C-alpha cells in the first residue's frame, strides 16, 4: 500500500512539473532560449490565483484567469527583452532570462510581501483501498487540469495555423521565414504560450502547495531536468520523464530519507546523461 501511495503521489506531482517543463521545451525548441525565469512566471501565476482567493473568488478559477494574464505578461517580456536576444548565443539568453528572474523576484517581493502564502480550495480528500491510500483532491484536480491543458495544446499545435507555423519555425526558422511565416510573431506567441502554461501551473501550485516570491528557482531547475531527460520536441517524453522523476523522487524519499531526495534525483540525471553520451559515442563509432 505504501508503494501505491508513493507511486500516486509521485505521478500527481510529476504531471504538474511536466506541464511547466512542456512550456520550457516548447520555447527551447522554437527559440533556442533556456528560460531561467520559468519558475518566477510560475510563482507570478500562483499569486494571481492567490489574489482571486483573497477577494473571495475560488482559486480554481485561477487556472482560467492566470494563463490569460500571463500570456500578455509573456508577450510584454518578449517585446522588451527576449526579441533582442533570440537569435544570439544561448549564453546571452541565459543571462537575460536570469536578469528577468531576479527582477521578477524582487518585484513580487516588493508588491506582494515576503510572506509564504497559499490558497485554500477546500476540495477534501479521496481515500482508496480501505483508507490506506489518501489522495488530496487538490492534487488530483491539478493533475487533471495539467493533462487537459497539455492535450489542448497538442491539438492546437497540430491543427491551427499558428501551431503549424510554430512547428515549422522550430524545424528551420530560415526556411519558414522564406516561406512566408512571420517568425517574429511566432516567437512572441511561443513565449506567450509558455508564460500562460506557467500561469496555469502557478495557479495549481497555489492550491496544492505554497508560494513565495523566492521559490521560483526550484521549478526552473526541475523543468530543466525533465526537458534534458526527455529531449527537445518530445512531448510524450516530457510527460513520461516528469512522472518518472516524480515517482523516483517519492520512492527515494521514502526509502533513503528526505535528505537524499534531491540528491538522488540529480544522481539519476547524471547517470542518464552519461548513458546518453555512451550511446552517442557508440553510434559515432558505427558511423565510422
Amino acid at each position, binding site marked *: 500500500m505504501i508503494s501505491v501511495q508513493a507511486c500516486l503521489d509521485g505521478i500527481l506531482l510529476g504531471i504538474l512539473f511536466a506541464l511547466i517543463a512542456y512550456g520550457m521545451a516548447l520555447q527551447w525548441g522554437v527559440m533556442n532560449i533556456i528560460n531561467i525565469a520559468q519558475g518566477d512566471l510560475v510563482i507570478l501565476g500562483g499569486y494571481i490565483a492567490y489574489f482571486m482567493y483573497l477577494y473571495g473568488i475560488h482559486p480554481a478559477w485561477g487556472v482560467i484567469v492566470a494563463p490569460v494574464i500571463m500570456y500578455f505578461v509573456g508577450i510584454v517580456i518578449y517585446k522588451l527583452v527576449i526579441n533582442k536576444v533570440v537569435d544570439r548565443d544561448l549564453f546571452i539568453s541565459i543571462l537575460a532570462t536570469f536578469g528577468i528572474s531576479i527582477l521578477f523576484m524582487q518585484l513580487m517581493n516588493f508588491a506582494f510581501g515576503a510572506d509564504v502564502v497559499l490558497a485554500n480550495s477546500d476540495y477534501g480528500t479521496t481515500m482508496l483501498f480501505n483508507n490506506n491510500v489518501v489522495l488530496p483532491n487538490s492534487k488530483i484536480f491539478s493533475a487533471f487540469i495539467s493533462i487537459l491543458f497539455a492535450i489542448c495544446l497538442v491539438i492546437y499545435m497540430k491543427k491551427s495555423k499558428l501551431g503549424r507555423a510554430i512547428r515549422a519555425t522550430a524545424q528551420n526558422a530560415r526556411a519558414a521565414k522564406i516561406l512566408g511565416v512571420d517568425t517574429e510573431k511566432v516567437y512572441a506567441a511561443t513565449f506567450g504560450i509558455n508564460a500562460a502554461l506557467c500561469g496555469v501551473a502557478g495557479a495549481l501550485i497555489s492550491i496544492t502547495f*505554497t508560494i513565495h516570491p523566492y*521559490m521560483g528557482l526550484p521549478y526552473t531547475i526541475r523543468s530543466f531536468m525533465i526537458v534534458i531527460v526527455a529531449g527537445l520536441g518530445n512531448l510524450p517524453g516530457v510527460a513520461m520523464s516528469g512522472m518518472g522523476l516524480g515517482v523516483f523522487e517519492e520512492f527515494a*524519499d521514502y526509502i533513503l530519507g528526505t535528505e537524499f*531526495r534531491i540528491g538522488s534525483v540529480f544522481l539519476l540525471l547524471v547517470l542518464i546523461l552519461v548513458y546518453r553520451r555512451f550511446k552517442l559515442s557508440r553510434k559515432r563509432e558505427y558511423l565510422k
Partner: protein
Amino acid sequence: MRLNKILLSFISALVILFSTSIASFAKVVGDKIILGAAISLTGKYSSNGVHTQNGYNMAVDRINSMGGVKVGGKTYKFDIIYYDDESNPKRAAQLAERLISQDGVEFMLGPYSSGLTKAIAPVTEKYGVPMVEANGASRSLFTKGYKYLFAVLAPANLYLDVAIDLAVEKNNGKGVTVAMAFEQDAFSQDVRLGVLDAIKRTGSKKVIDDKLPKELNDMAATLVKVKQMKPDVLVVSGHTKGALTAIRQISEMKVDVPMLAMTHCDAAKLSKQHGKNSQYALCASQWHKTLTYKDDFFKDGMTYDADFTKEFGYAPPYQAAESSAALLVFKDAFERANSFDQKKVRDALAATNMQTFYGNIKFAEGGQNVDKPMVLFQVMCDDAGKCENKVVAPTKWASAKLIHPIPSWSER
C-alpha cells in the same frame, strides 16, 4: 570657465557639508545615543525585518518619551541609524563595518534571523562593539566565545523540548515515540538537536528523523511514514513554509497524531491561513501577550499588544516584542554602567538581571538569555471557525488546558 568654478565650489561645499554631517552622526552626540542596525527591509526576510524595526522604533519612542536614559546625571535619548541589508549576509557584514567605521556607531542592535546575526557578530566582535540582538537564536552563535554579543531570546535548542516534556508528562512520565521533520538550515537543525536532547533525557524514542530540503514544499513522503509508524508526537520545524506545508498536507492526508508541535506558527499566520485545519497544533513561541511579566515602560504583554496594534495596525508577533525588549536591556545597561565606555557597557550588559514585559533577562557566558523559558501555545477554534492561540505550557503561564490527544480527523 566661470561656470566650472562655481560648480567646483558647489561640489566642494557639498563634500564638506556631507563629511561634517557624517561626523555628527557618531556614537553619543549632544543628548543622543546613536545605535546602529542593519535590518532586512527588502528581500526574503522583509516581513520579519519590518516587525523587528517596528519593535525597535516602538521602544525608542517609549523610552525617549518617558525620560530617556540617565547617564552621569544627564539625560540622553535613543536614536537608531538603519540600513537595509537586503536579507543578504554579506551585505549585512558590510553594513556593520560601515556603521562602525564610517558612521562611528559604538553600540549595535541585531538584524533579523540567525544567519544574518552570524554574519554581523564577527564584525562587532572585532571592533569591540556591544550588540544586543533579538532575532538570532541559533545555538552556534553562543558557542563561539563572543564577548560582545547578547541575545534577549531563548536559544533555538529550547524551542521544542518543552513539547517532548509535555508529551512525556501526559504519558504518565513514560517515554514517547517521536517523529521529527526538520528543514536543513542552521536554525531548524538547532531545534532538532534540542529535541534529540529531550528525547534522550526522557527515555523517549525517535522513530522518524527526516531532514526536509530547503527548496521543495512537499512533505507527503514523511507523512506517509508518520501514518505507518503512528508516533506519539510529530515535531516539524521549517520556518513559515514548513508550518504552512505541514498543516496543509496533514489535513489533506488525514494524518492522525496525538500531538503535533511546530515552530513559526504565528509568523505563518497559521490560524488565519488555514482556519480550523490548524486546530490543536502546538506552537513554540518566544513570547505571548498573556504572559504576566511586567516592566515600567510597556507595563505588560496585553498593554504592549494594544499599544503596538494602535501604532502599527497589526498585532505584534513575538519578533517585534523581543526587539522592543532589546532597547530596554540597553537602557538598563547604560544606566548601570553610568558611562559610554564600550567595555563598561559590555560588562554591565553581561551583568544584566531584569524583568521586561517580554520576560526575564539574564545572560549566560555565551550571551544567550537563560532566564526565559519558551512557551507553547495551542491553536484553539470555536464552532464558528474563529481560531485563537492559547498558552498551554509551561503550566505556570497556561491560560487554557492542553487538549490531548488530538481528536482524529474522522471525529472532527
